[in-house]
């Protein structure tokens, strides 16, 4: 398959994959299949997909290095923006249903209290805030205007991902197996970026000895 065909196919799959959870959630909502506590269900599901897509966007660079394919880099921004869309929906459900949005003054006071007193909310909010400028400057125009600084700015995704996983770890009551799975995957993705050039180049050299796939 040519690189262009592979990119087209990958783009189609990424869009379908990112949209599917949202469509399924919508269908479940429509058919009253959100269980006894639908707001909690929506918050958890949207939060889960936020983290999954954020980790997937962080996996694109290692995937590019390992496979030699171009498409992971071309679609990294798409996946990242989808992750942010899920984060915004997750946040919106909290604002509308957990804070009393019908009384904005009271909701604002409640938000302030949550941010100060509840560490997991502080972490989640900070992650959302860190990613906001990234979403805004994700366009080609902003990338051109910011030049080298664009790359530096977008390194904010690393602390945001750490905060996102901490948000999950700190809210769980006892059974930490799910949040720790996310933490483990994030650790691998971050360790890959650690500047240990020798190890990495050795791995890549070893790979390039094997016949590379035509691209």
């Amino acid at each position, binding site marked *: 398959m040519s690189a262009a065909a592979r990119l087209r196919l990958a783009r189609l799959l990424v869009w379908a994959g990112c949209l599917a959870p949202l469509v399924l959630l919508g*269908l*479940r909502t*429509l058919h*009253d299949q*959100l269980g*006894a*506590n639908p707001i909690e269900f929506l918050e958890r599901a949207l939060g889960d997909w936020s983290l999954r897509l954020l980790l997937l966007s962080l996996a694109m660079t290692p995937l590019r290095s390992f496979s030699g394919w171009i498409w992971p880099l071309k679609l990294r921004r798409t996946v990242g923006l989808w992750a942010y869309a899920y984060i915004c929906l997750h946040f919106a459900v909290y604002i509308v*249903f957990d804070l009393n949005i019908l009384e904005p003054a009271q909701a604002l006071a409640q938000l302030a209290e949550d941010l100060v*007193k509840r560490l997991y909310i502080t972490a989640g909010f900070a992650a959302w805030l860190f990613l906001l400028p990234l979403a805004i400057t994700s366009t080609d125009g902003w990338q051109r205007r910011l030049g080298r600084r664009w790359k530096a700015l977008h390194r904010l995704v690393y602390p945001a991902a750490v905060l996102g996983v901490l948000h999950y770890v700190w809210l769980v009551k006892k*059974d930490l197996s799910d949040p720790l799975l996310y933490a483990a995957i994030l650790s691998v993705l971050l360790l890959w970026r650690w500047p240990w050039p020798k190890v990495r180049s050795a791995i890549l050299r070893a790979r390039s000895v094997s016949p590379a796939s035509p691209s």
Partner: protein
Amino acid sequence: MLIRSIPPFPIAPSEITPEAVHADRRQFLARLGLAGAGLALAGCGEAAPPAASAAPAAAADLPALAVGQKRNFAGDETPSRYQDITEYNNYYEFGTDKSEPARNAGSLRTRPWTVTVDGECEAPGPLDLDALLKPHALEERIYRLRCVEAWSMVVPWVGFPLADLLKRFKPTSKAKFVQFFSLADEQQMPLIKRGVLPYPYREGLRIDEALHPLAFVAVGLYGRVLPNQNGAPIRVITPWKYGFKGAKSIVRIHFTESQPETTWNAIGASEYGFYGNVNPEVDHPRWSQASERRLGELRRRPTLMFNGYPEVAPLYAGMDLRRYY
């Protein structure tokens, strides 16, 4: 002590969600879904399903109980749907996700069942469950149930006062506390091998709390035998306390002079006190207890002191409830 048949009720009728609004929730949710799913769903054009009834149709396979007196201790509040009460459970022996106990608790065998009574009492011994239940006339009590996780429901339990049961064992003057042990059997509960909590699950009450007329032993709900995931065949209900205080599937009752170890307190004393009284003014270290989400409602409602059962307040006269949470 006489039980008042109409307990003092601190909520004004105007504060209670009108039943029409309550029943309308499913349609509200459906609209929410249409808005959320956007164009992808616009073509479906399907009407929302009618609001599900609270009647326990799903319980048809559980035997009905002979219920005498029926009393409502939850004011005008509508009992939660049978499906919500039985499919949203914290019962870690059958899984930590709230939908898991309903799926996994089928492996629990509730007969034959023996409850062992020991410690500071004059009539100890193992007791077959049916012999234990026989002297007690069953009544229905509608109680609010507030979980420490800040959600709540209203449940029509079937059972009898805990005091009536405990007095049969003639607790001695040294019996200052009573401890309840839940079943912990790897055959019937394979998930306990994960060790999320130290098993068996243990809970306890001060003896005057246990003898309070509101403290209840539940063997059923909605007029039928208790589903396994709700703590069959026998469990404790203390409606003014967080749900974790109510031990499920009890196999041992232990009278003791000193405050007994309780499971959540043992693994997280800063988050779960021995008393576990519902108190909107004392936050859980990680979340607020000032409000709660009632199953069946979309927005949060304020949490009431002692979960709306002020008649228990004399039990804690002079105690600093911030310290003894």
